[in-house]
């Protein structure tokens, strides 16, 4: 016997989402220039400054020459804009003998991120679906283990994973790294997918079973098409997480497949005389560009997706 409040929004996943995001729900603010509004916007503005400051400093610094950095303060805009640091960070900064900057790592990062994101989301969404809709005995125990697993520091697992990868012969290969990313992405993603699928009306699932669709049929033809919001969330989280990963990238691959973050670390940490802050900042920005763009473009979808059920326990 389902709760009518839930049922009323069952017409369509998309519909439900639209319903929930029809707009802010808080109390209505008073007139435009009320004291309250000034306080509200003032606070938001100040907080926004705090959040933007580091980005501003990064951008500004990356466009300055070294002499200017040494003299001026970090907040002043560049007197003379130069793209030299960007070019250097991308194509000529050295680590050891390799002086091809971040460019080499960029494509490695792409090659690592794409399959890792696909595999981890595929696994986690199926897990979440099985947990939400096809509960079998013991499933909860595994899920609990998984959630506890989310709290295990990666460093603790480095060594056992080396052994596991060695035993299955994937150590040092791209697929080994993809597997590691999928394993460590599993807890949180499974939680998100499970919560989302559980928030979908159970009757749809039952209707599909009466219609004769099996485990995979329901997943592929009913659940996945209804779950775009949560897939977007998972996509954003995974792309960001995997793109930004350093530890696994450096431990489980070899130098010719090192991701961009390893190169970033090399550039930033291999100090040649003076720290070239402008190059460091440019390198940092270039490395962060992919996830940053994703966030700036899809921030709205992200909130929408989370609102659509990911957080409903």
């Amino acid at each position, binding site marked *: 016997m389902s709760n009518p409040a839930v049922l009323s929004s069952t017409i369509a996943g998309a519909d439900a989402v639209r319903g929930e995001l029809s707009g802010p729900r808080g109390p209505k603010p008073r007139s435009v220039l009320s004291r309250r509004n000034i306080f509200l916007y003032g606070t938001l503005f100040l907080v926004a400054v705090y959040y933007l400051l580091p980005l501003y400093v990064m951008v500004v610094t990356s466009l300055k020459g070294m002499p200017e950095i040494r003299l001026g303060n970090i907040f002043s805009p560049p007197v003379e804009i130069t*793209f030299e640091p*960007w*070019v250097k960070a*991308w*194509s000529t900064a*050295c*680590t*050891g*003998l*390799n002086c*091809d*900057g971040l*460019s*080499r790592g*960029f*494509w490695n990062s792409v090659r690592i991120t794409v399959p890792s994101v696909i595999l981890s989301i595929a696994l986690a969404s199926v897990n979440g679906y099985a947990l939400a809709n096809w509960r079998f005995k013991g499933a909860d125990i595994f899920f609990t283990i998984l959630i506890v697993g989310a709290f295990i520091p990666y460093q603790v697992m*480095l*060594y056992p994973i*080396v*052994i596991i*990868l*060695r035993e299955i*012969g994937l*150590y*040092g290969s791209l697929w080994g790294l993809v597997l590691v990313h999928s394993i460590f992405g599993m807890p949180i993603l499974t939680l998100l997918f499970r919560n989302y699928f559980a928030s979908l009306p159970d009757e749809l699932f039952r209707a599909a079973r009466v219609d004769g669709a099996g485990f995979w049929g329901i997943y592929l033809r009913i659940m996945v098409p209804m779950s775009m919001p949560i897939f977007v969330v998972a996509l954003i989280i995974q792309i960001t997480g995997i793109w930004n990963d350093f530890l696994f990238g*450096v*431990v*489980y691959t*070899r*130098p*010719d497949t090192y991701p961009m973050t*390893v190169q970033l*670390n*090399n*550039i*930033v*940490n*291999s*100090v*040649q*005389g*003076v*720290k070239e802050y402008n190059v460091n900042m440019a390198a940092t920005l270039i490395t962060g560009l992919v996830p940053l763009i994703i966030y700036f473009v899809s921030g709205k979808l992200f909130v929408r997706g989370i609102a659509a059920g990911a957080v409903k326990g």
Partner: protein
Amino acid sequence: MRFKMMAAALAASVTLPFAGVASATDLEVTHWWTSGGEAAAVAELAKAFDATGNHWIDGAIAGSGGTARPIMISRITGGDPMGATQFNHGRQAEELVQAGLMRDLTDVATKGKWTEVVRPKSLLDSCTIDGKIYCVPVNIHSWQWLWLSNEAFEKAGVPVPKNWDELVAAAPALEKAGIVPLAVGGQPWQSSGAFDVLMAAIGGKDTFLKVYEAKDAEFAAGPDIAKVFKAADDARKMAKNTNVQDWNQATNMVITGKAAAQIMGDWAQGEFQVAGKTAGKDYSCLPGLGLNPMIATGGDAFYFPLLKDEEKSKAQGVLAETLLDPKTQVAFNLKKGSLPVRGDVDLNAANDCMKKGLDILAKGDVMPWTDQLLSQDTQKQKEDLFSEFFANQSMTPEDAQKRFADIIGSAD
């Protein structure tokens, strides 16, 4: 316009990685030499190896041995070893050898008569386990140097000190001139190393060995070592405004005259060279802090994991030979600022400081260093202690000495 150029540069560099593929045997060599002087020195090794018709694939991992070592060890134990890898010779790779993961180089060593050419002999001893040779020492690095900025002392109006005590005496004048008397970077190994240098310089070789070789905890708690802690206390007071992390940033403070002195190994010399400074004119160096000139025979070595591939194994042999080749030795060590491991090479090109080192070496005033004497575990505990001691002015030398003695007592 600028944008267009940048775009072109970006496009060009994107395509590069897929372009060149070498035909000769590729050997991947991992190391953590990424600073300016270090990278230049590695380039010499790579050049020499490439000249043999093989190809050196550089696997530099920045961030000092601490970041790089776990990766190297994981790869060797994970079954995906590189062709060769840098370790500090000594006890770091001991277990890998015992586990049968490393290649026995005895045949190459016999052919190249290493036992005859490598000097001092203790270097090769560190590479020898159960009578077999497992590594190639490439240089001698000694920690016991005090680097001084002539410009800083000039500015403060005091003469360039001749030893540690004079530096301590000059500290107030330096501070008045806005100069940090002693630069000690925030990385834990720097403070720990500086302390060892102070012990060797103030206490002398026997004291040093009694603590680190005999691991005499009682002695470590005694008055001889208290003197060393007193000196370390001076050092941390002088260093308290350093505010940098990396050793070469600290060195850079000396190069630019922001700091007057630094206790650092001879690799710092590479930084002075890259910066275009001349020994004797722009900077001075005092081996053994001017108190007790000795050379510690620490240093770097290359280890070769056991590989299945015939071709690669052969290339490993070639690399091992190349590393000890007199020409390579000279070229590498000049850039690195370290001393060559063979006595039969011509080092006319060496600068003042290097020559001082060579003289001491020739006299046989050598001693082992902590890398050979202590396990990494003990080293790390020491690093924790001294990084805390240097950062936390409220920790008394007495407390620190007590903890130090405990560490020595449980050391292995």
